[in-house]
């Protein structure tokens, strides 16, 4: 052909989108809400509404147009905003009850705006308290159960740890109770699926529930999250069984390169059509409940009988790194989380491994040391102690803090369910068996609270 695209290449691209679920998982419009700040709550609300509606009004329509023009599906359209605790701080009065109510009202306002512009989710309801908690952060945290439990599209996050500050264990202890309350406050605990706890979060993450528009970003930006576990699985499954692992990594890299390039094209076009800056492209293998679109299955294709068995951490390390390398070569705007996600309920292979007893919380935790996020979408018994929830969170934050990486936790204690039971949310959130946890308590460790000190960065052994 004159443009020198060979028949084989066309066929490969066709297979990626048609048969292997390659898609643009999310286009996310980041909106800076700082100009809306006011010490008058009603003024803040009015400005916020105006800002979101005016910035995002064309967003969904433009995304659809680009999807149609290029013939590559865009699955989700989202908005991220400046963290709510930062925006709300000036409008709080010091009256705890009244302020909490304002925080909930603000969440409802965001929910309404998200509905009006037609996005799937709006992220950023949270704040940062790696070292200490301001009054605003405390109030927003207290409001979470109602704010997320009673809204549809609003997603929340809190950053409780960083490599520079260590872990705020007082906040960790508190969040354990908040998550429990959030679960009780919503249908089948779904509110907890919309909330993420972070160590070292990134400000340009297009994925939910942990996305927010960071203070280091421009006014408005478009971030793109691409996906494609199905594509990578097919590539790995098609390789000879005795092919050395470095060659496997090479094949994954090439695939990641291709999907990143397509994603960047879509992101740049969308940003241009909205007249805003293109932020970053997040090259993450994010599983969906579609059969074959599973990170667990990729590891199995590398030669593991079932994900969770010995070798799973090594295989995931290879995968995460190869995806990052391919992505970085393809685009200089790679950001976000970039790597491989292991959300249990959303990944058919992982959920099956848990059901079969091959994958437990301990192995999952080990795998998060090399994946790009953390303990994600894990359903646990509804009667799990809040100190145990806090202790699981502390473990995962420690991994992030000590290894200078982002880690995240999305735990869902499902009321009335016991280990081995099953929960199904449907849609993108999928279904999962309830994960058994250690029965020994961590009470006194969590009750100490205080600050877990930041690590020394020399003597890294």
């Amino acid at each position, binding site marked *: 052909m004159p443009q020198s695209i060979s028949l084989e*290449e066309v066929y490969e691209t066709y297979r990626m989108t048609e048969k292997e679920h390659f898609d643009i998982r999310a286009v996310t419009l980041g909106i800076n809400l700082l100009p809306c700040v006011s010490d008058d709550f009603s003024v803040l609300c009015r400005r916020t509404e105006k800002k979101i509606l005016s910035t995002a009004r064309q967003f969904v329509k433009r995304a659809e147009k680009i999807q149609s023009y290029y013939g590559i599906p865009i699955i989700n359209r989202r908005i991220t905003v400046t963290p709510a605790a930062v925006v709300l701080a000036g409008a709080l009065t010091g009256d705890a009850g009244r302020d909490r109510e304002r925080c909930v009202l603000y969440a409802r306002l965001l929910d309404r705006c998200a509905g009006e512009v037609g996005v799937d989710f709006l992220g950023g309801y949270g704040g940062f308290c790696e070292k200490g908690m301001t009054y605003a952060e405390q109030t927003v945290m207290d409001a979470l159960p109602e704010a997320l439990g009673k809204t549809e599209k609003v997603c929340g996050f809190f950053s409780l740890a960083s490599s520079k500050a260590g872990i705020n264990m007082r906040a960790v202890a508190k969040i354990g109770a908040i998550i429990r309350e959030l679960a009780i406050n919503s249908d089948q605990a779904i509110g907890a699926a919309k909330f993420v706890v972070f160590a070292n979060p990134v400000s340009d993450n297009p994925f939910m529930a942990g996305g927010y528009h960071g203070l280091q970003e421009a006014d408005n930006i478009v971030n793109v999250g691409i996906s494609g576990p199905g594509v990578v699985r097919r590539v790995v499954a098609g390789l000879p069984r005795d092919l050395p692992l470095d060659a496997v990594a090479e094949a994954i890299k090439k695939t990641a390169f291709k999907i990143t390039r397509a994603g960047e094209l879509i992101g740049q076009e969308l940003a241009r059509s909205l007249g805003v800056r293109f932020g970053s492209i997040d090259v993450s293998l994010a599983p969906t409940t579609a059969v074959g679109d599973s990170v667990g299955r990729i590891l199995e294709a590398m030669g593991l009988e079932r994900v969770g068995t010995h070798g799973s951490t090594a295989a995931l390390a290879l995968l995460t790194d190869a995806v990052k390398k391919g992505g970085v070569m393809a685009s200089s705007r790679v950001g976000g989380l970039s790597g491989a996600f292991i959300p249990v309920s959303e990944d058919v292979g992982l959920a099956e491994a848990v059901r079969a007893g091959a994958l437990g919380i301990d192995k999952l935790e080990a795998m998060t040391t090399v994946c790009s996020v953390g303990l994600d979408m894990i359903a646990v018994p509804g009667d799990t102690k809040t100190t145990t929830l806090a202790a699981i969170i502390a473990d995962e934050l420690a991994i992030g803090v000590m290894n200078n990486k982002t880690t995240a936790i999305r735990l869902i204690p499902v009321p009335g369910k016991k280990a081995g039971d099953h929960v199904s949310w449907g849609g993108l959130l999928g279904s999962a068996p309830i994960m058994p946890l250690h029965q020994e308590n961590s009470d006194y460790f969590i009750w100490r609270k205080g600050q877990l000190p930041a690590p020394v960065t020399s003597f890294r052994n």
Partner: protein
Amino acid sequence: MKKEGKDLAIVLVVGEDQTGIVAQVADFLWKENINIEDINQKIMQGVFVMTMLVDMAGARSDVGVVGPKLEKLGEKIGLSIQIQHHKIFEVMHRV
């Protein structure tokens, strides 16, 4: 989004070889006012694969509208027919 000059897309036809494939696809494209620039075909792993480089500049609608129509035509003649914008292939397969 419409560019000056050409607006290239690639039509892919996959399935069992039979008579009249080119004629039927070409007839459809002509009715949509889409110009065929080049045709390439091959048997890959026992499957008939054909690509058509087409110019959508004067087309009545874009890839997103033409796509489902082509799929329908494919179903009628027992083949899989897809269309995607040329730029996608360019960015994915060329450094």
